[in-house]
């Protein structure tokens, strides 16, 4: 009896520990613990994210045959909490004349009766880009595993009449209802080198007419991939249904171009079907970006159950192809982010969905109240390879602040000069993550404060140059200005660390920087975390909390 009880206790303890153990495969040090990724092979764009009958759906571009991009189909997973996922069979295969060469990106629209439908780009037998419709086979299947393609496909295609470039016509958005009861959708396009959001309308979701003019366009921007068009509230952080209209709203038009996801905030003239931009641009030099690091092909959806607008984004590998071939996989999704319009109306703000906090464990509260100039402190008792850390700084004295040369306008360039987080005036101060014990290998995420004649400027940097001692790969320095007044506000930084990815949020989500790193030494128990100040002024620390993150159930 005692023997049996012993075994029972051991069983119970090991089951309880399962969620907390580092489920590490020593041959795969870079696979993540809580970021969405399939068990193997290539993944890129998130597709058709939606919520249906209380279950979240994520589809994604997937290569069933290997770790490089190709043979693309729609893979599919569902979740109750945006954190733990259940995989399902491939939802959309390459089966018809209109998608035999590829099932590329697209979006879901929830029709007024609650029925979800998918519009996606197919590559047809002539390698032309066309738009297709798929609907669930069985609406009472809570996981919507099977999808049927419309016999009317393709619904929208390049023709001799419309003169649409057959190689530049893809990524249909979630549709919205216009003032006349007709559905509207935009498709990413270019004409020559000018990016365009081609506008189509339909009454029945089957027969679509091209509008006379695109919703918006921009000269010389290049192709607009993965467009997104949605309303945001000027009065709260709540999300708004994609068809939302009325007072207290602005609209956001987003596109993926030039390796970044850029957006414009403006007004949607619903009568004329025209978008009038107010802030930002969709050009090559775009300043308003979702993320100043690696973050592409992103897409939002309206979560009606919690009234949030949620953003998904694809984070690709920074290593060479041989490396990801040998690993056998490529691509991650960022942690889904709530996205809303800042109080100032000047930009969008993002924050990891709060559900991710359920993975937090073993909270560590630091007693540090001040970071002396030139100091480094370890944040101990946390699994530094799999962590969530929040830190809040206060500037008490500005006497050592450096001048910002007015000709320095690129935050990346400013972060990159002087060779990284070396000595400065007010800063650099911040975190060293995925760091080796001897701090020879580390990734630095930090702030610097400058004087800009009229005001103080806060710069946030994520420096990957020393992220791996032995592995050679793309190690850029990312930078972003953070719209904060350091005289009045605290400088907050949150970083989610997950083995080969870090997502950093400055100013409660005003500046976001995602990066990929592949440490040689700072792996598992070899990973450490430090807080540092390489400036000449002392910096106050008003809060420093870190959690170890449990492993999520992704596959």
């Amino acid at each position, binding site marked *: 009896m005692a023997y049996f009880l012993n075994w029972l206790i051991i069983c119970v303890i090991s089951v309880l520990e399962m969620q907390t153990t580092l489920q590490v495969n020593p041959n795969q040090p870079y696979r993540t613990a809580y970021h969405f990724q399939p068990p193997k092979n290539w993944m890129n764009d998130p597709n058709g994210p939606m919520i249906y009958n209380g279950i979240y759906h994520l589809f994604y571009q997937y290569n069933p045959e290997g770790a*490089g991009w190709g043979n693309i189909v729609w893979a599919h997973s569902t979740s109750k909490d945006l954190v733990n996922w259940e995989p399902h069979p491939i939802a959309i295969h390459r089966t018809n004349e209109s998608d035999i060469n590829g099932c590329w990106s697209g979006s879901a629209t929830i029709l007024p009766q609650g029925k979800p439908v998918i519009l996606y780009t197919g590559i047809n037998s002539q390698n032309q880009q066309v738009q297709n419709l798929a609907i669930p086979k069985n609406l009472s299947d809570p996981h919507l595993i099977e999808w049927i393609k419309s016999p009317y496909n393709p619904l929208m295609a390049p023709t001799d009449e419309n003169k649409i470039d*057959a190689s*530049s016509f893809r990524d249909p958005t979630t549709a919205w209802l216009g003032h006349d009861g007709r559905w509207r959708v935009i498709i990413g396009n270019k004409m020559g080198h000018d990016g365009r959001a081609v506008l189509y309308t339909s009454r029945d979701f089957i027969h679509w007419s091209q509008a006379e003019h695109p919703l918006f366009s921009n000269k010389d921007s290049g192709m607009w991939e993965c467009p997104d068009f949605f309303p945001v509230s000027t009065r709260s952080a709540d999300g708004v249904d994609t068809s939302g209209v009325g007072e207290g709203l602005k609209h956001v038009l987003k596109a993926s171009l030039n390796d970044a996801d850029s957006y414009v905030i403006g007004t949607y003239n619903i009568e004329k079907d025209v978008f009038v931009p107010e802030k930002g641009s969709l050009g090559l030099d775009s300043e308003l970006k979702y993320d100043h690091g690696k973050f592409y092909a992103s897409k939002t959806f309206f979560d009606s159950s919690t009234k949030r607008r949620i953003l998904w984004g694809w984070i690709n590998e920074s290593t060479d192809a041989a490396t990801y071939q*040998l690993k056998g996989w490529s691509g991650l999704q960022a942690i889904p982010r709530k996205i809303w319009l800042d109080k100032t109306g000047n930009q969008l703000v993002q924050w990891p969905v709060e559900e991710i906090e359920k993975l937090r464990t073993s909270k560590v509260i630091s007693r540090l109240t001040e970071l002396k100039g030139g100091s480094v402190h370890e944040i101990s008792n946390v699994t530094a390879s799999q962590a969530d850390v929040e830190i809040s700084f206060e500037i008490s004295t500005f006497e050592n602040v450096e001048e910002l040369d007015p000709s320095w306008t690129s935050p990346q360039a400013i972060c990159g000069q002087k060779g990284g987080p070396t000595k400065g005036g007010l800063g650099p101060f911040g975190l060293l993550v995925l760091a080796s014990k001897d701090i020879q290998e580390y990734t630095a995420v930090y702030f610097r404060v400058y004087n800009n004649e009229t005001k103080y400027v806060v710069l946030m940097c994520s420096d990957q140059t020393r992220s791996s001692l032995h592995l050679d790969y793309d190690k850029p320095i990312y930078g972003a200005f953070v719209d904060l007044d350091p005289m009045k506000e605290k400088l907050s930084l949150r970083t989610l660390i997950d083995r080969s990815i870090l997502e950093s949020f400055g100013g409660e989500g005003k500046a976001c920087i995602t990066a990929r790193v592949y440490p040689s030494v700072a792996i598992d128990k070899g990973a450490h975390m430090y807080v540092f100040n390489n400036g000449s002024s002392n910096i106050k620390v008003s809060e420093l909390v870190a959690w170890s993150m449990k492993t999520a159930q992704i596959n």
Partner: protein
Amino acid sequence: MKNQQIICLILLTLIIIHQTYADENLIQTTCNNTPNYQLCINTLRASPGSATVDMAGLGLIMVAAVKAMSEQALSAVNSLRKSGQPKLSQPLQRCTDFYNGVLKADVPMAEEALRKGDPKFGEDGMVDAAFEAELCEGAFKGVVAPPPSLSGFNKDVRDLAGVARAIIRNLL
């Protein structure tokens, strides 16, 4: 009647000449915007179909050249491995991996990207191909000087991939 036929013939000839020059123009303008004009011109002109293809077609010709050169590089690696010099063994193994990356991932990805119209994957593929060649060259650092024949191939792959990338960027 005869006059009309002559005029027709002249017009037709002019059109054909103009078309040939127009396409030759495309090759010249395109190659002018690459890091290695001569390499670009020589490679494109050596391909039988180059006079009549569009920009994506020129990109595909260049990707094919990267593929051919990488295959030669891999052959060279295999020959060197057979010669069995112990110091070369590890760097050569790494070069096998790097060039397999080019041939199994980068080239197929770039070909599909150009055929189906998602040129950014074509650019990524060619940027990576150049990087893999660089990694192969770097694999010998601190061990032994890279064998000259292999160095030659590494440089050629980098140069060709650089030209391919520049051509593909026109499609973005």
